[in-house]
């Protein structure tokens, strides 16, 4: 026969166990799986990026497709007008029919003038593959400097010509002992 105190000692752990088991259960929040999904998506993304090609996320793909559709619709509505370049090309053909289109580019250095009869500001480059054929490029700011050089060269040439002995002079010198 056990005393009441001993019985109480035996019951105490049972009571404690019951109290512990009766504690309210703390559940996971309602968005637990959504948060987990986000985190797992973050883990899986680098795995997908390993390949050479990966499909874009729908978040990017849908706006991209929409943009392409808008561009196509815009082209079909407003894209029927001829562009400026063909018009200019036609104009240049009408000016010199049969001639190859010439492309004019600004001179880069004064050396570009040597042996040419082009004006100081511009020179032309002819070629069948010049797409911007009749586009006249404005003269570069170095035009003034080039003209100064040209005038200096002319002056020097004139000096040389005036100071150099003529053929007649030279033949006369040869005859004279």
């Amino acid at each position: 026969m056990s005393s009441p105190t001993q019985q109480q000692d035996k019951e105490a752990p049972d009571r404690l166990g019951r109290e512990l088991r009766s504690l309210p259960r703390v559940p996971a929040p309602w968005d637990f799986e959504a948060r987990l999904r986000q985190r797992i998506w973050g883990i899986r993304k680098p795995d997908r990026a390993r390949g050479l090609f990966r499909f874009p996320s729908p978040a990017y793909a849908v706006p991209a497709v929409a943009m392409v559709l808008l561009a196509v619709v815009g082209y079909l509505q407003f894209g029927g007008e001829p562009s400026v370049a063909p018009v200019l090309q036609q104009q240049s053909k009408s000016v010199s029919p049969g001639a190859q289109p010439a492309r004019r580019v600004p001179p880069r250095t004064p050396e570009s003038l040597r042996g040419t009869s082009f004006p100081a500001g511009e020179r032309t480059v002819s070629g069948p593959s010049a797409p911007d054929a009749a586009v006249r490029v404005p003269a570069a700011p170095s035009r003034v400097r080039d003209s100064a050089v040209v005038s200096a060269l002319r002056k020097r040439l004139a000096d040389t010509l005036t100071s150099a002995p003529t053929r007649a002079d030279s033949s006369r010198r040869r005859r004279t002992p």
Partner: protein
Amino acid sequence: MSLHEGTYPASRGLPEGSRAPATVSDEDLIARFQEGDERAFNELVRRYKDPLTNFAFRFLGDRDECLDVVQETFIRVYRNKHSFKPIARFSTWLYTITTNLCRSALRRRRVRAIFSLHRDDDDGVRELPDESAHTDRQADASLKAERIQRALLTLAPKYREVVVLREIEELSYEEIAAVTRLNIGTVKSRINRARAQLQEQLKDLLDD
């Protein structure tokens, strides 16, 4: 990601009429997940998210921290699915991961407490407000639960983890020994010590 994308059938391959709920064991589910079936992982999450949350909360006493721990548990299961070997029970493996993460969280908390200027006096005990506690009886139950939780948190972590696993999660001694990697004798002695300390602290509550 196929989380939430449909539920996992309880017994695949069986005729429609003979399906019984939860006949697929955890070990079968993890095996299927190891083969690449993500619905099996979703089912495991559904089965264990609440028990693990409860365990982590009773162990740590902090709601946010416990949710981080449980999330991290499932992330580790996802990442290291192939490290589970069928020689052990899946629940044991899962509780082992959670227990280790809880221990790490406690260590981090201790380090934070050392380096922080002010410390929380309540040791992170934040019982969730129960909106349904309108009656006095419910209020009493809520207060009692809070009191028990406080008493649990005064225990040393090594005692707390075993008593929570045994008394609240109702794991067997063998399972606790596997989770904590202790021998059964040590587990039993720790549980007895934890009980004695709790009885001492909750004497007036238990005598009522």
